[in-house]
């Protein structure tokens, strides 16, 4: 079997003051896995995704990503483009004035040239059916359009893993259906947080439940 993309072993995490969020969480993600991450509100699902890409640091335990243990910030700098995190609120993700600038932000950070980036942006918009959105102003998009553009900003980095934090949250039926079609066509391994049962059965094939700081299969 191939090397796992992510391996979390015995993760412990608590916010500054308060209850432990994770207490001995184990988890392995392999290529092609599509995992639904479920659990009650506030149980720490988003926290887990943030730990995986190093936005938060675990107090104990190990995060192994793409075959290497990741401990320091500089280890995670390399992880983040390879594990695309889609945030719950697209307003957090889209910060540039126009759609094309926002999509170009990631590739430019990765050192792509402007000409190359322009092509990447065009391709990304076309692949999500967002042609003609280049110069639209991001904060004037509808909620659904914003979510799709946010997904585009993640996909242009060519991630090997997608971490989707409530992707169908506040989407209308049509955009939700479109999102399912798009996700179905993607080759990446995924971890999806959602409370939308129907969405999870259609997009994922493995269930993991976060309960009392531990991850349980099934």
């Amino acid at each position, binding site marked *: 079997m191939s090397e796992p993309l992510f391996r979390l072993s015995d993760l412990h995490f608590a916010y500054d003051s308060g209850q432990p969020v994770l207490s001995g969480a184990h988890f392995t993600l392999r290529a092609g896995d599509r995992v639904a991450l479920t659990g009650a509100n506030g149980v720490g699902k988003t926290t887990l995704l*943030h730990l995986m*890409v190093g*936005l938060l640091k675990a107090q104990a335990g190990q995060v192994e990503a793409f075959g290497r243990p990741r401990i320091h910030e500089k280890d995670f*700098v390399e992880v*983040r*483009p390879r594990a*695309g*995190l889609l*945030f719950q*609120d697209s*307003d*957090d*993700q889209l*910060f*540039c*004035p*126009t759609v*094309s*600038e926002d999509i*170009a*932000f*990631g590739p*430019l*950070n*990765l050192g792509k040239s*402007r000409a190359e*980036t*322009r092509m990447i942006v065009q391709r990304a918009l076309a692949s999500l059916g967002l042609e003609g959105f280049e110069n639209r*102003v*991001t*904060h004037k998009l509808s909620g659904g359009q914003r979510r799709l553009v946010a997904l585009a*900003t*993640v996909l242009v*980095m060519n991630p090997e893993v997608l971490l989707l934090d409530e992707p169908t949250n506040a989407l209308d039926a049509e955009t939700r259906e479109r999102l399912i079609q798009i996700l179905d066509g993607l080759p990446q391994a995924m971890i999806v947080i959602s409370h939308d049962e129907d969405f999870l059965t259609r997009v994922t094939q493995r269930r993991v439940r976060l309960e009392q700081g531990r991850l349980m299969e099934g």
Partner: protein
Amino acid sequence: MNTSASSSAMHSLAKVSHPHASVTIYLPLKKGDREGFRASEPLLKTVDARLRLAACGLFALIVVGLTQIPALLTALALAGCAVLAARPELAPTLRCLAALDGFMLFILFFLPFTVPGEMVFSLNGTTASYEGVLQAVEILLKANAVVLMILALLGSLGSVELGHAMARLRLPVKFVQLFLFTVRYIEVLDREYRRLRTAMKARGFRLRCDLHTWRSVGYLFGMLLVRGIERAERILAAMRCRGFQGHFYPMTEAKPVDRRDYAFAGLSVAAACALIVLEYLHS
């Protein structure tokens, strides 16, 4: 031979018309649109945004330094001409001026009474000085001239365009980003404020003059601040997820400058020189 000639002619025609097919449909339409757009649009709006921004900065800088009333009146007249040329919507322009002048009059009202000098008139025993009145008039003229020029030159620019123009003028990246972030998120914060405010109203909250009101409004703004900070942290996190390490790589590129832009630049410099000359002539 005849047939081959005609077929080759047809061939070349097809060949020519094929790549042009889309062009002939699109280009004239677009071009016509743009020409029509340009003809009906005030000339000032077609000038490169960078130039307009630079001219505005130059004008403001010079006007702030002027001290002679004739020079200031000329500056105001220039700004007025610029407004006429830009033809902005009347109502918002007047509202903007009224807001400025209302504020200025309130502030400047006390100036004649606080600046020492030759007495002009007295009110309730306090004397107003000639120097004070002069200073008040000076400030009023300066403020109006600068604001009118900003309305004329930058009023028609969208905030995004303005941000891009600032970036292209090589203003500090941090400043430009701060501006663009403000533009981007002011609406999000406003939405958040309205949501909280509506939720308060839904529970029967009304602004009154009591401790409860003050405390609740305090909570409201405190909550906005906390949410603002949390959002800023999430935005930074999202940026780091996309490889942000403290450097921005702007995507924008400048359009070539054309004759109209050169004419505008020349006119701006001439006006600036005229103001400086006027200032020296009268001092």
